[in-house]
């Protein structure tokens, strides 16, 4: 959920069922489309992921250290995107930013997925008063606007926080959307014929969970995971842009925070502000295409079989 604010999950929520219900009438055309989507998304993620995790080993200096180079150098062979007003190399700062943002996103997504799956599945399967109380909390957490709470937390712990505390806070306030999705899934699975079929054929609970439910659920969890990565990167970046995250750590948000606070626009340092914009848009597009691509691929697979 999120700051995204405009975050990812609602679309997954709304898009998934109709696509799944779409019969394979235009199978040929549709298959081509979804493969293209997924392929483009995966290629973007692969390039950016590998690049940002391997390149830092070749970094000439830690880009978060200020005054390493001359200030405000233009683009050149030595500094591909120039240097900023703090004497940091913009290209390397960006590489580290993508790496840190991706790492934070993946860590948060792991946490959120675990919490959401436990809460959602237990609510869906146990039902009754337990489900009602849990869903009350889920709905509350969805309704409460996240950013004000994060701003207060940011104001309270600013300076005394580590980068990972920020991730932890995002997990604490970000699990509700996914829990809602998982619960909806659990509810619909509970009623499915093939679950009953397996049960009547003598399969035990572990077998059913592993062989019937998990393959079905894993697709959604994967899509939810990617959406949560998107949400987490976005949330941290948002906090960083307004200066309430750990802005010394290079992330996709903190680079824009520094560019804005040093008025990169007025001083005409386009690379400083344009490069992170391009990188963020590309990364988010990659994540989004991968998530919807998977969604469609799984949907059509279920439709075909």
């Amino acid at each position, binding site marked *: 959920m999120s700051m995204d604010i*405009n975050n990812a999950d*609602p679309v997954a929520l709304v898009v998934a069922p109709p696509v799944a219900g779409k019969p394979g009438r235009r199978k040929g055309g549709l298959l081509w489309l979804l493969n293209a989507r997924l392929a483009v998304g995966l290629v973007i993620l692969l390039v950016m992921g590998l690049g940002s995790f391997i390149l830092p080993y070749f970094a000439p200096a830690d880009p978060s250290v200020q005054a390493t180079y001359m200030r405000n150098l233009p683009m050149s062979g030595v500094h591909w995107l120039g240097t900023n007003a703090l004497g940091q190399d913009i290209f390397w700062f960006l590489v580290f930013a993508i790496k840190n943002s991706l790492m934070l996103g993946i860590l948060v997504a792991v946490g959120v997925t675990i919490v959401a799956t436990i809460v959602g599945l237990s609510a869906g399967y146990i039902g009754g008063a337990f489900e009602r109380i849990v869903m009350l909390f889920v709905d509350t957490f969805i309704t409460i606007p996240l950013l004000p709470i994060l701003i207060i937390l940011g104001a309270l712990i600013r300076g005394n926080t580590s980068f990972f505390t920020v991730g932890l806070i995002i997990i604490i306030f970000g699990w509700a959307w996914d829990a809602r999705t998982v619960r909806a899934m659990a509810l619909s699975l509970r009623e499915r014929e093939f679950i009953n079929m397996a049960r009547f054929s003598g399969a035990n609970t572990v077998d059913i969970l592993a062989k019937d439910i998990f393959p079905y659920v894993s697709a959604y969890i994967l899509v939810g995971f990617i959406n949560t990565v998107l949400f987490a990167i976005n949330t941290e970046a948002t906090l960083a842009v307004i200066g309430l995250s750990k802005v010394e750590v290079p992330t996709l948000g903190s680079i824009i925070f520094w560019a*804005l606070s040093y008025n990169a626009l007025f001083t005409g340092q386009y690379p400083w502000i344009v490069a992170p914009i391009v990188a963020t848009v590309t990364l988010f597009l990659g994540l989004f295409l991968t998530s919807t691509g998977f969604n469609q691929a799984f949907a059509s697979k279920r439709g075909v079989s």
Partner: protein
Amino acid sequence: MGVLAYVAKRFGLYLAVLFIGLTITFMLPRLMPINPVDGYIGQIQSRANGTLTPEAIEEMRANLEVLYGLKGDILTQYFSYLKRVVIDFDFGPSFTYYPTEVSTMIVTALPWTLGLLLTSTMIAWLLGNMVGLVAGYFHKHKAASVLEFVGILLYPIPYYILAVTVLLLLAYIFPIFPLSPTFPVGEMTWAKVGMIIYNSLLPAITLVLAGFGWNILSMKALAVATTEEPYVTYARLKGASNWTRMTRYVFRNALLPQVTALALSLGMIFNGALLTEIIFSYPGIGLIMRTAATGGDYNVLYGAITLSILAVATAGLVIDLIYPLLDPRIRTK
């Protein structure tokens, strides 16, 4: 009966959301390892260059603790907090702009936020749904996928990127709008209203763009699914025109999940509005929160967050109460 039960259930959820939200707001600073009172005293001490006597500091601490409701055990604090917030809507004075009351500051900023937020959300929702409807209804045409492409491109872009890009494009490269907006205060004249609208256009464009993509995508998916329904085929066989089928058959049915989705995503839309205000220096609740956060003005922060929870929960309630008017199934059940 159906409607009554629905309204009662929805109202119960509303109260629960408010209660849990206020409780979280109350607990947050008390769970933190940092004491705002110490922070203030540190600030005042440094302003006075460390000339305060220990007695003066003790007295100040006692005063501040009374002022911020930190006296007594946690239950007493909690109940007096609820009473102050719910019944009196009193958050005490602002620290930075002492002795201005927090509630006054919030009431001044609220119309700005509401005006920007309501207008842009309505436009984004209507436009996005219309484009999504066309893209979904004519999904077999090549041109429709162009519309969907717009949604795919816009949707995953975060608010802050949209805001900075819009600023870069429309205020810097093509200087149509001012880079740093000015918002006149005092009595309203037509000239001032025009100026406010002109200066609000950039944040509004950002918010519309941000909401637009999501609405296109979800409406398109819903419209595609609805178009395949037997009753739409029946309408076609009956001889209903394309327009009638699209608006009366597909749109009305696909609209319902979109209304629910709007109610659910209000919190996120609100987050986006806050951020947009901060980036564009638009004088709403978001800017107040941002200023208060950097200045350590906790009373203002708690007032603003309480109001945010209240506003979002109430808007959700209103939308959900309108829902039975759109969906006859709830009325007749």
